[in-house]
């Protein structure tokens, strides 16, 4: 693993029964990089992410994330890996019966942080996503874009090294998508590595970064400007 890699997939093959989803895939994400992962539905984008947060083990190959050997990791250490990752999904996965503040704070409670620090950090990340004033609201009071920003705030609460975003703008209108993308850019500019799965080519063109395409189980780099 090179000195600056935060994610490294080496010769990964993933097969489900007789179907090969990823075929000898090798990939690196360097510290501070922003990378898009694109591909058609069923191309294996979600499996690719699941390998990183250890929701799936490869058939062959090895995965190393944030200095941890993911494939060889004992089950009890998986939570420690996930604390080094911020994960954002298309469906917001906010707890509907808790306030915005509580939704963010509980991410820190599970890691055993002190009450005083939780309060300070929650206000900080809510401020970063521009939603401090909505902290007492329930998720249902917020728009889709705002909810996704709360999810990003929750993902950032434990100061992860990498942000994984699986179609974060998939359920949003263009305006809300833009606000989420601007936020991801801001987070990346502060030095955090971002790996984003998307099939929204407009977003990839509007916010260009290194782009990888998964196709027929293989991963290839593409030019964002040429995507149609």
């Amino acid at each position: 693993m090179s000195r600056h890699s935060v994610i490294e997939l080496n010769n990964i093959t993933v097969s489900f029964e007789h179907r090969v989803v990823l075929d000898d895939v090798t990939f690196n994400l360097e510290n501070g990089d922003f990378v898009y992962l694109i591909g058609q539905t069923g191309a294996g984008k979600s499996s690719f992410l699941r390998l990183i947060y250890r929701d799936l083990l490869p058939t062959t190959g090895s995965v190393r994330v944030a200095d941890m050997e993911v494939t060889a990791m004992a089950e009890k250490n998986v939570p420690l890996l996930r604390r080094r990752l911020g994960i954002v999904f298309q469906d917001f996965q906010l707890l509907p019966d808790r306030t915005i503040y509580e939704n963010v704070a509980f991410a820190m409670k599970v890691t055993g942080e002190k009450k005083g620090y939780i309060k300070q950090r929650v206000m900080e990340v809510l401020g970063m996503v521009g939603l401090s004033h909505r902290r007492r609201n329930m998720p249902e009071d917020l728009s889709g874009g705002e909810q996704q920003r709360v999810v990003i705030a929750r993902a950032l609460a434990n100061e992860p090294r990498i942000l994984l975003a699986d179609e974060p703008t998939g359920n949003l209108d263009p305006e809300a998508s833009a606000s989420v993308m601007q936020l991801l850019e801001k987070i990346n500019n502060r030095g955090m590595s971002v790996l984003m799965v998307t099939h929204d080519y407009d977003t990839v063109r509007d916010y260009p970064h290194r782009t990888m395409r998964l196709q027929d189980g293989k991963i290839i780099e593409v030019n964002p400007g040429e995507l149609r």
Partner: protein
Amino acid sequence: MSIEYIVSEGIAGIKRAKLASFTSIFSLFIAVFLLGVLARVSYNAYEVAQALRQSVDVEVFLNDLSEQETDNLENRLEEEELVENVTYISKDSAAAVFKEEFGTEGASLADLEFLPASFRVKMVEGAEIEKVDSLVVQFAEYEGVEEVSFNQKLLEIIETRFRTFSLVGGLIGGLILLASVILVFNTIRLTIYAKRSLIKAMKLVGATNSFIRRPFVMEGVIQGVIAGLLALLVMVISFQYILPEYIPQVGILDWPFGKWYYLSGAMIFLAVLMGFWGSQWAARKFIRKTSISE
């Protein structure tokens, strides 16, 4: 993880999913109440059987024996492990009892001399009929003993009925327990399933499985306490007030061992245990199976 967090999350969990919690509490309540009723009825049946057993004495009728021979025989009878105590009934006492029971007016005690002296032998509590039976055979062979009698038929009926009752009661109890465990465990499983979004979100941010599980287990324990207390309350109301008032022929069914706290403690303990096990099992299983990307 602090106990304060576990308790507050446990209570919050019940408040957040009121219907699911009510279902769990209700199924625990039904299970514990039915088992409590069965235990109370069984205990009272056991008490009746014991009282009947105690009322059956063995009569050892004697030949004409000297005082020394009578004493020797009495000592020999008392030495038996199954014998609680031995009472001597002289010829005169036997005649007096006979006169009182059969009213042979005018007849003098001397006319009733054909009645032999005897020992009334009381057996220890819970003495098995087979052992009493073999003891009777043994007594009959003692020197100076004319005849031994006891109401074997009555004892046999009591024993048989009691065994049948114990078997059926145990079977019903076992079935109630099994059905309750299945019902309670499944209810708790559904309650936890209803909170899968919480489990997913917790796994997503790196909570350990035990961290996720503990509030659920605490919730199960709290539900158990509530269900146990409820079952106890309903038992008190039904056995102390409703049954004596509306079905007096049932009679007073006492608390086991005459004290309210044995059964009450057992009921609450059982409810808590079922709540604890049910939630522990369901949470463990469900948390392990839940994928954060589903």
